[in-house]
């Protein structure tokens, strides 16, 4: 028993099965990211004009982001070349281009996680008067009141003495020291300022630049995180095509080419999503 149209197209639709399947799947992905973009717009429109939750501009590292965008777009062209090599029956070239594609994906994720790390080690102290001081802190910069171990809404918890990534309340803090960022600069490399001391009674909350920091960071981490999962998924598929999956080339080359095309379509879609993510998160 054979399922028809796995290799050659059906006459009336002109398509083979997996082509229909992948586009349907991508349609659902459009709705997934559509909902997240919808959330982005809403959070942004709702955000206050001033104060701690004001929507930031050029907060992320633009050069790194631009470079990463380049990496992803480049990987999109290499995956095409990989597929084209297969169509032209050149398996060796396919292996090269696919290998490069996978490496690009790896580079993208590496750079992305480096960016995440930088954010997690950067802090904001929200004062009771509504202003925020952002900058760098170390564990010993925070002095908690005697015996404070706090549980917060849902499961975030801060253990005595250690500033975890999660936010903490001012009422539990004796005082903190923070080395503020240079005003109006976007680089952290700007000359370190002298640490300032802030009393616990003035502090509403402290948080690192994690998803909990503000609605902007919430949507930033969620969107880029989901996107990264997609990149990872695409890499798994690509690696399969590059490695064990290649076996099929010798038994059913046409079908293998179809598979690579489908994997490529997914990969392009991931690229396409990033084309929107980059400006809305990094530039606007």
């Amino acid at each position: 028993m054979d399922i028809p149209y796995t290799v050659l197209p059906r006459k009336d639709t002109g398509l083979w099965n997996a082509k229909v399947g992948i586009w349907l799947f991508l349609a659902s992905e459009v709705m997934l990211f559509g909902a997240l973009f919808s959330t982005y717009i809403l959070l942004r429109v709702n955000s206050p004009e001033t104060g701690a939750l004001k929507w930031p501009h050029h907060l992320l590292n633009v050069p790194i982001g631009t470079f990463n965008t380049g990496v992803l777009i480049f990987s999109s062209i290499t995956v095409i070349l990989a597929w084209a090599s297969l169509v032209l029956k050149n398996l060796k070239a396919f292996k090269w281009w696919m290998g490069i594609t996978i490496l690009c994906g790896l580079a993208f994720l590496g750079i992305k996680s480096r960016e995440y790390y930088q954010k997690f080690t950067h802090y904001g102290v929200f004062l009771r008067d509504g202003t925020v001081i952002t900058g760098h802190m170390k564990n010993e910069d925070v002095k908690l009141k005697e015996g404070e171990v706090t549980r917060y809404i849902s499961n975030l918890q801060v253990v005595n003495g250690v500033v975890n990534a999660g936010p903490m309340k001012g009422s539990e803090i004796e005082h903190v020291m923070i080395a503020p960022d240079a005003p109006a600069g976007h680089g952290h490399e700007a000359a370190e300022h002298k640490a300032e001391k802030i009393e616990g009674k003035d502090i509403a909350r402290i948080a690192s630049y994690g998803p909990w920091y503000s609605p902007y960071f919430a949507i930033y981490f969620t969107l880029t995180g989901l996107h990264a999962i997609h990149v990872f998924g695409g890499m798994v598929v690509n690696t399969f095509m590059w490695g064990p999956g290649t076996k099929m080339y010798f038994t059913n080359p046409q079908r293998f080419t179809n598979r690579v095309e489908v994997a490529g379509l997914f990969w392009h879609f991931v690229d396409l999503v990033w084309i929107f993510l980059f400006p809305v998160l990094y530039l606007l």
Partner: protein
Amino acid sequence: MEATVHDQHGHATDHAHDAHHEEHKELSFFWKYIFATDHKVIGMQYLFTGLIFLLFGFCLMMMMRWQLAYPGKPMPVVGNLVCSALNMACKGLGDESMQGGVMSPAFYNSLGAMHGTIMIFLGVVPLAFGAFGNFVVPLQIGAVDMAFPRINAASYWSLFVGGIVMFVSFFVPGGAASSGWTSYSPLAGIATTGQTLWLVGMIFLITSSLLGAVNFITTIIQLRAPGMTWMRLPFFVWAQFVTGFLLLLAFPPLEAAGVMQLMDRLAGTSFFLPSGLVVTGMPSVVSGGGSPLLWQHLFWFLGHPEVYVLILPAMGIVCEVIACNTRKPIWGYRSLVFSVLFLGFLSFVVWAHHMYMTGMGQKISTFFQTTTVIISVPSVIILSALFISLWGGSIRFNTPMLFALGFLPMFGIGGLTGLPLAFNAIDLYLHDSYYVIAHFHYVVAPGTLFGLFAGIYHWYPKATGRMMNECWGKVHFWGSFVCMNGIFMPMFLQGMAGVGRRWYDGGQTYEFAQGVIHSNVGISMSAWALALFQIPFIINFFWSIRHGKKVSDNPWEATTIEWAAPSPPPHGNFVETPEAYRGPYEYSVPGHPKDFTPQSQTA
């Protein structure tokens, strides 16, 4: 992304050779029955999973009905059993929930939320879409299998994992999710661990439906047998086709919302938490700036199409059964098809009729009110066409037909009582009352469930080669029919008197409810009696597998192509590739020797 069964076996054996020579046999058993890729086996897996969860969800409800009928009284026997079971699984949980057999308010909330969730996502969807879709659609279009058998299996196992997660959530500290099946934030954002598991479970269930939808749509587009043009598809296939699109495009926003609520709970974000949130008297430490209403939008963007996911397959089944048992063509096949397409399309633009109470302005309320009223038109067309189809037929009143006939007025009541809810002025009064509960249960319980029962009785001989017992089938039908109405009819009155849904005491403490609360006892009695009337069905179902009357491949003398396959159909379905030469419902065609002309018959 693509797969064939051949390939599947190829992999399986290769693997066995590489790794463990001696395990070859076990593996092939495993591939055949557990990680099966045959659409019929997967259909059966869905069927059993769905039926078990349906029963489970019903049991939750029977416990709640005790509390509503006799508020605060200890539940005999079951109460203590549940208490000790929960205590055993998680220390102290039983005492919190059911001490001495008395249900606590929090536990009532859990039961309600999980009843809704389980009935919809683990009961009806797996049955209507997973089971019937899988078993019947490839057969009706004359295909050998689904387009992607392995994705099909993945879809089932994703559902299975989701089901396990949901089930396990009853036994974690704090109990299962208790913020309603709608999980509104911020309530759900601050709820106990059960809510986290609910979200994780939902993500698996959604993934399952998405994979299923991709598979169904591709199958219907690509694998129709020669001659099976779009306008020759049985209406059931059309219904599944539209259902597939609803799932495909409406579920992802809820998946996104689920991820965001999970982030709210685990990573401290504030997607759905407003600024200045105060929890149990304490200002919370979240950043705020989110919007609780956004959750409602994303939820109902799925939620409304979901109700059509629940009803369309049932309509499809009913249509098949009616055509077959009236022995005449369905009246208005084309209008049925266009109605169902139109319905699917419109169901994406009505969602905020669930949110009239959230302070939407006049313009937007008017918009949703208008679309909602419009969407009732295709539903009415479908129902009318099915009613008219009965006209002048020589009806065979067998069990599937009885259930199909029962469906019509029940769905009619459910649908028509929905119309007032479409108007926002009226909905402001009826919202969140038992009127709403009665309305949608008429659609999903005596509506959809009857449709599903009709389907089970109708296709049972195809799946097993044997009939279910008619006499017990009739007992099942009439008992269920009476009890269903006994349960839901009084709820309309309660709701109109002002009794709210999700009330722990059924209205005892409200003066205005005093006139209607006595019917709570009757409702509960009906619910328990309904359970009794399912016993003949369960026994009949299992007994007939071995002892039912043996029948031919086409015992109902039906026209659609699935009846041309052997019963039960072998792997690969048809002995020779079928071809369609005519429309799906050619019954009693003048001049033909028999009163039915199968689609696959040449002349």
